[in-house]
């Protein structure tokens, strides 16, 4: 087995260090929110995970498009890798949001546009993985995956738009907010720093995981080819 490239090892260590710092910033550096208390600290990783989820699915749609244009399987490898990461982080986003909502909204769940959209997005990409699982031929699997990745990504904002017409109670912390939202708050400079740092850390985390997963995909393809070679010899 080939050793992982030096740059990847470096990136992994860097991400680990960043994560440790981010944890420190979220748990100790950022001040305790006045009304919500410590529960508010969920917010930093909650938003960062949501960001990684959306980014991952965007990458899937883009690389899927490139695959359809070029028919180079390496792009499809990136697309799948990205979906798997996106599914995990979207789940983290939903679950952490739920944990926060229990004390703040007094319920685990509400049918707010953002919550529903995040869940639908998660379901679309779980369906994506199931679709890929059901197809044996690698080229066809790649083509179908790309098509579904594009169609699914297109449908997510439309879902959001459709459900948005109902009134939302989800706080908009970044950018101008609606003051009637339950659980809205203004960030102090230290909170903002912790928040930005979490975003940065999770972006690095995404890049690291993606690289590892893409490498894994390449290796497993190589194993597949070696198997074929042995069997046919």
């Amino acid at each position, binding site marked *: 087995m080939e050793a992982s490239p030096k740059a990847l090892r470096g990136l992994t260590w860097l991400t680990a260090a960043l994560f440790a710092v981010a944890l420190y910033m979220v748990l100790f550096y950022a001040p305790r929110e006045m009304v919500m208390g410590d529960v508010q600290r969920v917010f930093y990783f909650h938003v960062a995970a949501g960001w990684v989820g959306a980014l991952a699915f965007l990458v899937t749609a883009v690389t899927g498009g490139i695959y359809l244009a070029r028919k180079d399987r390496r792009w499809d490898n990136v697309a799948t890798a990205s979906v798997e990461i996106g599914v995990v982080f979207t789940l983290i986003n939903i679950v952490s949001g739920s944990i926060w909502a229990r004390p703040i909204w007094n319920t685990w769940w509400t049918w707010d546009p953002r919550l529903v959209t995040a869940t639908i997005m998660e379901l679309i990409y779980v369906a994506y993985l199931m679709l890929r699982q059901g197809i044996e031929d690698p080229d066809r699997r790649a083509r179908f995956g790309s098509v579904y990745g594009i*169609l699914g990504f297109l449908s997510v904002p*439309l879902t959001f738009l459709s459900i948005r017409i109902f009134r939302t109670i989800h706080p908009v912390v970044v950018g101008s907010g609606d003051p009637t939202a339950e659980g809205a708050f203004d960030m102090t400079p230290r909170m903002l720093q912790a928040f930005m740092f979490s975003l940065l850390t999770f972006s690095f985390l995404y890049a690291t995981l993606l690289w590892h997963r893409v490498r894994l995909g390449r290796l497993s393809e190589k194993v597949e080819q070696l198997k074929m070679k042995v069997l046919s010899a």
Partner: protein
Amino acid sequence: MSEAQPPAQALRPPAARIAGEPRGGYLRAVAAVVWKDLVAELRSRELLGAMLVFALLVILIFNFALELDVRTRATITSGVLWVTFAFAGTLGLNRSMAIEKDRGCLDGLLLAPVDRSAIYFGKVIGNLAFMLIVAAIVLPTYSALYNTNLFRPGLLLVILLGSIGYVVVGTLLAAMAVQARTRDVLLPILLFPVVLPVLVAAVKASNGFLQDLPLAEILPWVNLLIVYDVIFAAVSLMVFDFVVEE
């Protein structure tokens, strides 16, 4: 006289037919695919019968599950109708693509010297026809069972628009699902989350018409529905080639 016309049409090389044929040729190809589906259905009566019985069963189940008394009915009829159409629709979509796949018809269709989009549109129109036929039977039945009148021009328009959005995505995804191992299970899982915006808009618009809301409240949903139809049709059309290519 006799050596002039008839065989020339058939013998013309495919490339010339695709490139040089006036638009009538494209429409004829679409019509041929639709016609094939309708005739096959007329002879076998496999699909519509199943869809219809299924649709009526769904309504019956809703009747017991939701206690459809007069007051509840007013607010949830549109939801019941769209769930029924959506479920019956997956049945139809699955079947219409499965028969192409199982008997190798799809390969034959793809060999035909016509643009692939003609095949796509043909299948879409065929599936749309089945959905509308189901709707045409479900609506009077529902009206009779629950003593209401569902034949309102607004509702009919919404059903048409919603079905178009549902079918343009559904046909594309059904073409993918039938080529997978778990195909019967897969289609609804692939289709429902993607087509959700269409269903939401369709339910809201239908509800508006059924409750006689002012037109200004319904129109945004109808407009959304049109926008979704256009977007989904355009994207599906663009990627259909990749789904059927070998």
